[in-house]
């Protein structure tokens, strides 16, 4: 197991060395530095500490797998009752890009009940093969049978990488499959790139979005990643179809479950901020709950929706489902206008892919201006009413 070896004699200032560790994993006692269980092996102490003080010792190489035995990039087809979630198409687009780099095929894995017709649709997006497991037992998502099907597919097809949408189902299924295959899984990737040697570069925000981490799964296959909806670009639907549908069979013994679905209740049809083309975001610069009506009015005039930062959701001013950010939703509208938002990194992480970002803030040093395309230094209470008036006048004319 690789480890960190401390050379006490090379340490002049033990305190300074322990301070480098962001995880408090280094302790100093009687002038001696040691490493405790909090160590995350980030190796900052190796890099930033006095030369040679902390050494990273790798041990003999692990047994290596034959990567050439693992071919193809698979997208899990996320659906409820055959209704395919659009994140699936976004991932197919990404998979095609990754696969072309290493000349691998793109697969889709579709499991459910009476879904064969729906599988056709996937062929409009450039999938080489759609593997379909169609069984009544797979009618609703249940962890054991879905995992069993996934395992069956992986063992037979040996894909090098698997992309899953970070949906309610994907977030439960992907980890379970990863554990069964004893492989790595990187959650909520925002950037994916393929290396020549078929290693998938998985980049995601870490430590609450303050930094980005570049993650590899170099010694295991398949490599698994989840991606949130609206992070990747959706490919255009082609008129013609391409690829073929492959019906698959599995031993029905494996489709048993200890989860018994008793009922399904439709929720009231909600408008999700993810689907809005225009978002007007209220931040703490909005002083009173009543003032939200102004934000709402602007959103309505632009045919958009209102969204908010975390403090407003926590205060109960705006529904938590409208919160943008790391612990909220990832959005990618054509136009986003932030009003009185400071631009904390956790917020930025949820909206920085938007096409056009307009930010209103009184503080010209606000962090949001690092991300905005249009930085409006001013008071939202001044600008927004004037803008509303102008739009109304234009619409009335």
């Amino acid at each position, binding site marked *: *197991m*690789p480890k960190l070896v401390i050379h006490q004699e090379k340490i002049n200032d033990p305190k300074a060395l322990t301070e480098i560790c962001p995880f*408090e*994993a280094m302790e100093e006692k009687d002038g001696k530095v040691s*490493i*405790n*269980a*909090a*160590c995350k*092996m*980030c190796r*900052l102490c190796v890099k*930033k500490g006095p030369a040679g003080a902390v050494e990273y010792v790798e041990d003999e190489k692990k047994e290596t797998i034959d990567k050439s035995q693992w071919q193809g990039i698979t997208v899990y087809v996320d659906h*409820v009752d055959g209704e395919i979630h659009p994140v699936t198409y976004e991932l197919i687009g990404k998979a095609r890009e990754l696969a072309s780099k290493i000349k691998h095929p793109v697969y889709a894995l579709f499991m459910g009940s009476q879904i064969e017709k729906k599988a056709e649709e996937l062929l409009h997006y450039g999938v080489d093969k759609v593997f379909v497991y169609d069984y009544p037992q797979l009618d609703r998502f*249940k962890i054991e049978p879905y995992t069993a099907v996934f395992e069956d597919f992986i063992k037979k097809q040996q894909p090098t990488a698997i992309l899953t949408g970070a949906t*309610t189902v994907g*977030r439960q299924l992907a*980890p*379970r499959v*990863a*554990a069964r295959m*004893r*492989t*790595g899984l990187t*959650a909520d990737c925002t950037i994916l790139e393929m290396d020549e040697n078929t290693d998938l570069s998985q980049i995601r925000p870490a430590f*609450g979005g*303050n*930094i*980005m*981490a*570049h*993650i*590899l*799964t170099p*010694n295991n296959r398949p490599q698994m990643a989840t991606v949130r909806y609206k992070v990747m670009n959706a490919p255009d639907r082609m008129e013609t179809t391409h690829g073929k549908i492959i019906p698959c069979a599995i031993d029905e013994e494996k489709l048993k479950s200890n*989860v*018994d679905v*008793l*009922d*399904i209740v439709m*929720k009231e049809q909600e408008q*999700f901020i993810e689907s809005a083309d225009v978002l007007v975001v209220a931040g703490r610069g909005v002083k009173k709950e009543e003032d939200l009506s102004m934000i709402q009015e602007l959103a309505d005039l*632009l045919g958009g929706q209102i969204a908010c930062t975390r403090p407003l959701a926590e205060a109960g001013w705006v529904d938590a489902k409208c919160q943008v950010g790391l*612990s909220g939703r990832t959005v990618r509208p*054509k*136009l986003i206008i932030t009003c009185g938002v400071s631009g904390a990194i956790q917020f930025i992480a949820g909206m920085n892919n938007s096409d056009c970002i*307009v930010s209103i803030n009184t503080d010209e040093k606000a962090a949001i*201006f690092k991300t*905005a*395309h*249009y*930085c*409006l*230094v*001013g008071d939202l209470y001044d*600008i927004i009413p*004037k*803008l509303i008036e*102008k739009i109304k006048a234009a*619409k009335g004319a």
Partner: protein
Amino acid sequence: MDILVCIKQVPASNKVEVDPVTGVLLRNGADSKMNPYDLYALETALQIREHTGGIISVISMGPPQAKAVIREAFAMGADKGALLSDRRFGGADVLATSYTLAQGIQKMGNFDLILCGKQTTDGDTAQVGSEVSEWLNIPSVSNVRKITKVEKDGITIEMDLPNELEIAKVAYPCLLSADKDIFQPRLPSYVKKMKTKDREIKVYSLDDMGDKDESHYGLNGSPTQVKRIFPPESNDHREVWNDDGTVIADKLFHMISELKFI
């Protein structure tokens, strides 16, 4: 009923910043707290126990300081606690973390119900629970927003899906990941805190685990490797409008009209 809750100690503030020049992580404040999402899982356990009776255990994996969150769980009403702590657990990714937890859980005993939080505020993957259930070979459900019935042979829950709610009965033993807002977590009680201040917390190291193969733990048992970390990019293509409000409103109006939003 034997219930186990998985709780993690996380930094109290997530405001780590990266020094743009040196690339070093800057931390402000060393305080730690219980992962806020785990409070909901613990509260769920407490609520269930009020109906069924039984024992609530908590488990945590982390450095020795993480005992603090187990004490906090005692002060909220948990009965037993164990900490999995060993330098060799360090650097664990989701697979190794969940494996270590599963090993520790098997060491602690048999549980009817295991509860996890939705996600941690530092790891932030929302994956550990589901992987633990795989290692234990028990069914699991995430996004549990309501418990509707607790019976002898299983528990009925509501799973939150984007457009619908699914009501399902899950047979014991099983693992559930509780959503935020399933119940309002209670505050730790001072009386309970005093009463439990000497209560034993079992600490298990790798040598106590059923599987003692070091290669399954910590960094070595982690298939994912962090190649590098870097600060997020900032955007260079930007226009600053520093003007009178009327002028800005006017410019904005023209800009969004041109883009055909009006």
